[in-house]
């Protein structure tokens, strides 16, 4: 089951530079929440704070709290590595491990964590994850081929399978379709719709139609000017966001009369 995320007064920094200012956000469990907004406004940055990937960049840090089912991810004794096991992430560019086969890619999360599991458990996990990612039918006869040999859309679904194989409660997706063609995009969108039964999904997208198609809630991020910190301008359920937004900036952005 998915878990809810509450973000309270989150300020995100790169070194001394305040990148995103005072984000307050409540992400419902088992729903798809989309982040939209112009480039550079901090959508991806906010997304990456939800599984503590932000702090991989030297000097990057946050102030404020992110609560996953009430537990602060940024608490003193919280291990970022265990956070990332609960919150999975799919990236903009499909990034299967080039040295691994399809099967090994799916198992990467388990194997790299040095957990020994039996061959039959592995087989089951591979099938479960690949079926979950709508990829099983396409690859079941060539699981030992390199993952990098698949098409872009298949690679992205392989990455989703790899993420769900760790069995997280939340899936973060950073523009997962921007490198894909429309047909692959459709496949991934269908998959997102199915996955929300089991996971809480947060997706960053530049494609407003996509947000309207798949998201239950939408957050609009904006920045006052270049060099200024970004902020969450408006958050609403998707229907309100796209049909009757109660925010001028959001309305102008959505209708394309921005700037």
């Amino acid at each position, binding site marked *: 089951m998915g878990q809810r995320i509450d973000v309270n007064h989150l300020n995100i920094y790169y070194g001394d530079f305040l990148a995103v200012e005072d984000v307050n956000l409540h992400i419902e469990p088992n729903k798809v929440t989309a982040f939209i907004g112009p480039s550079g406004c901090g959508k991806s940055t906010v997304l990456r704070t939800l*599984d503590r*990937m932000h702090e*991989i960049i*030297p000097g990057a840090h946050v102030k404020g709290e992110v609560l996953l089912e009430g537990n602060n991810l940024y608490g003193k004794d919280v291990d970022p*590595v*265990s*956070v*990332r*096991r*609960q919150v*999975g*992430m799919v*990236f903009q*560019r499909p*990034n*299967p*491990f*080039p*040295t691994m086969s399809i099967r090994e890619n799916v198992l*990467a*999360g388990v*194997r*790299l*964590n*040095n957990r020994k599991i039996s061959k039959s458990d592995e087989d089951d996990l591979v099938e479960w994850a690949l079926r979950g990612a709508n990829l099983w039918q396409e690859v079941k006869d060539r699981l030992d081929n*390199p993952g*990098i*040999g698949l098409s872009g859309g298949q690679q992205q679904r392989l*990455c989703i399978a*790899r*993420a769900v194989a*760790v069995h997280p409660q939340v899936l973060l997706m950073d523009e997962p379709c921007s490198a894909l063609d429309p047909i692959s995009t459709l496949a991934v969108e269908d998959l997102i719709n199915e996955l929300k039964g089991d996971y809480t999904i947060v997706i960053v997208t530049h494609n407003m139609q996509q947000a309207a198609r798949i998201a239950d809630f939408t957050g609009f991020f904006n920045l006052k000017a270049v060099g200024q910190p970004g902020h969450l301008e408006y958050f609403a359920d998707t229907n309100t966001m796209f049909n009757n937004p109660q925010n001028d900036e959001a309305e102008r952005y959505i209708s394309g009369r921005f700037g």
Partner: protein
Amino acid sequence: MSAATNSSSQIEGAPNIDFSKFETTRSHNAARQRKDRVMTVLIALAFVVALIPLISVLLTTIAGGIKRLNFDFLSHNMQGVFGGKPTPSGGYGGVLHAIIGTLEITGGAMIISIPIGLMCSVYLVEYARGGRLAHTVSLLVDVMSGIPSIVAGLFAYSLFTILGGPGTINGFEGSVALSLLMIPTVVKTSEEMLKIVPNDLREASYALGVTKQRTITKVVLRTALPGIVSGAILAIARVIGETAPLLMTAGFILNTNVNLFNGPMATLPVYVFKEFSDQTVTCPAAAGAGCVEDIPTERAWAAALVLIIIVLVLNLIGRLIEKMFAVKTER
């Protein structure tokens, strides 16, 4: 071509441009093609010139060395070999002791320098990302790669003088000297290889809840492995032919010494040097037909050929490993 002769549509405030002025002319194109042909010939010529010494070295060594390169030569040392007369076993002496010495000493150098060099490059790329210590280490590595090999030999010699008393000479001392020459190459090449591992893969691994240590060992090093192997082979090839530091540290003996840690050891380059300095032996009239006057020179060539073959075999092994662990790039 009519579009090209038209002036561009008038943009308000922008200068009027006559694009026909920028068209390439026929003579331009002809000149470009002439230049292309000349450069093609020049580059092909440069390639041939670069190949000439390589092929010439190979051919000369094969021609000079093949005569004495037989099983006897590979299976005997130089014990009891005097003048140009054949030994009681039928051969004219051999390089068994030098082959063993070279392999052991180089192997020792590998065992010292590959872990150190690799860990150093992991530190530089994965942990220190541009810190002051990283800059210092990089600088020192650059300086170290310029150390003359004789200085490395002197360093190892004086180190072992401190550790084991004056005049200490053994194979391991040679390994230490060679590893000083190898480490910079290993650091430099593996640093480059680690740098080109896409950051995407590190992030993908972290996002699966994998620790940094396992990300480095299982994803980053694994992806960079083929490059690291070829870098290591390159480093070995660079030191396996070193003569001066080995002469100083490992010394030279005629019989076989398999103990890396005790007593002098012969190595192929030193063997070549020694034999070549002898040039010829004198054959007294009583020696008979079996006596060969320029046997030392012939042995030197044959040993040189053995050295080249060892390097080639190492290269082949490296290629094989690279192929086995190659990253399939279909992107």
